[in-house]
């Protein structure tokens, strides 16, 4: 069964430019979030997000919906992120400005709750940054992007049981890091 996004991609393949624009709008925030946390560099993540869409655009003529569209797109993003990290030999473990500059999701939280939430977010960002790349990719694809184990396996080139194990280790590592935050 072809998912809605794959149908849009097929429409784009048939010349419907609006279908590409719809995919661009739908996937920009998702890819940007994923790539920002993968490469730990906001400006670079924007460039890589654009790289993904350039590849999607250029691949339209030969596109065949063999997997869910999201699986395909995040597969491209994952590979670009790994290449970027390899090429730059960068380890970006500093907390992202994303947390410091973020508006609270709860409109009027109490000041102490807000501080605690920000501390937790900073600690979590830092813990995510310390994860091995495949574990980080797996947990982001699951928790942030809502991909299923089968899909994550297709993105990472792993079996479903391999994904289960990767996620288990990622969560254990995150919990270990978070336990070190002072109460």
């Amino acid at each position: 069964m072809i998912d809605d996004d794959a149908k849009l991609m097929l429409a784009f393949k048939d010349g419907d430019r609006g279908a590409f624009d719809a995919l661009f709008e739908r996937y920009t925030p998702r890819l940007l979030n994923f790539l920002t946390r993968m490469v730990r560099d906001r400006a670079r993540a924007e460039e890589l997000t654009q790289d993904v869409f350039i590849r999607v655009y250029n691949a339209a003529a030969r596109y065949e919906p063999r997997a869910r569209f999201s699986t395909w797109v995040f597969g491209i993003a994952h590979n670009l992120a790994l290449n970027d990290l390899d090429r730059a030999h960068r380890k970006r473990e500093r907390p992202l400005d994303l947390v410091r500059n973020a508006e609270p999701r709860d409109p009027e939280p109490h000041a102490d709750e807000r501080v605690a939430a920000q501390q937790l977010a900073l600690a979590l960002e830092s813990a995510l940054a310390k994860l091995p790349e495949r574990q980080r990719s797996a947990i982001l694809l699951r928790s942030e992007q809502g991909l299923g184990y089968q899909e994550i396996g297709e993105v990472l080139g792993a079996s479903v049981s391999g994904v289960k194990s990767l996620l288990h280790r990622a969560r254990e590592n995150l919990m270990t890091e978070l336990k070190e935050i002072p109460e």
Partner: protein
Amino acid sequence: MTTSRHYREDLGAYIDLELDGAARAALEAHLATCDGCARELQLLRGLGEALAALPQAEPGPQFAARFHARLAREGGRRDLRARLRAWWSPLRLSLALGGAAAAVAAAILLNPTQAEPDPDWLIVADAESYELLKEEDLDLLAVLEILEAWDDTEER
């Protein structure tokens, strides 16, 4: 009571709704009797909520405009490359044939007793330009410079 190692890996899959019926039922039965695993499950749920509450990255205001400008640039470059390639292939062939003919003629003139020219002559005649033009990633400017140089040679 300690957390059962056997079930720990299943806890994540349980909250992700990725456990099949039998494994799910077995884990739920275990959770009813194991405080350690029940506590671990709560911690994992808390972690999931914290991950879901992380701030979202928003694209900058010029993100879409920059993308479309880049797409247009790349598209233009690709079209030009394709046009150049289509235009250049027959030209290159004719130039190569012309170069080969000239080399043969020169070989015969310089050495009228030798019926067959030295094959090296044919390669030497335009080897440098030919090798350069085989490069797929050759910069457009470089291609144009080579073409101009060829034109100059032809005029002379």
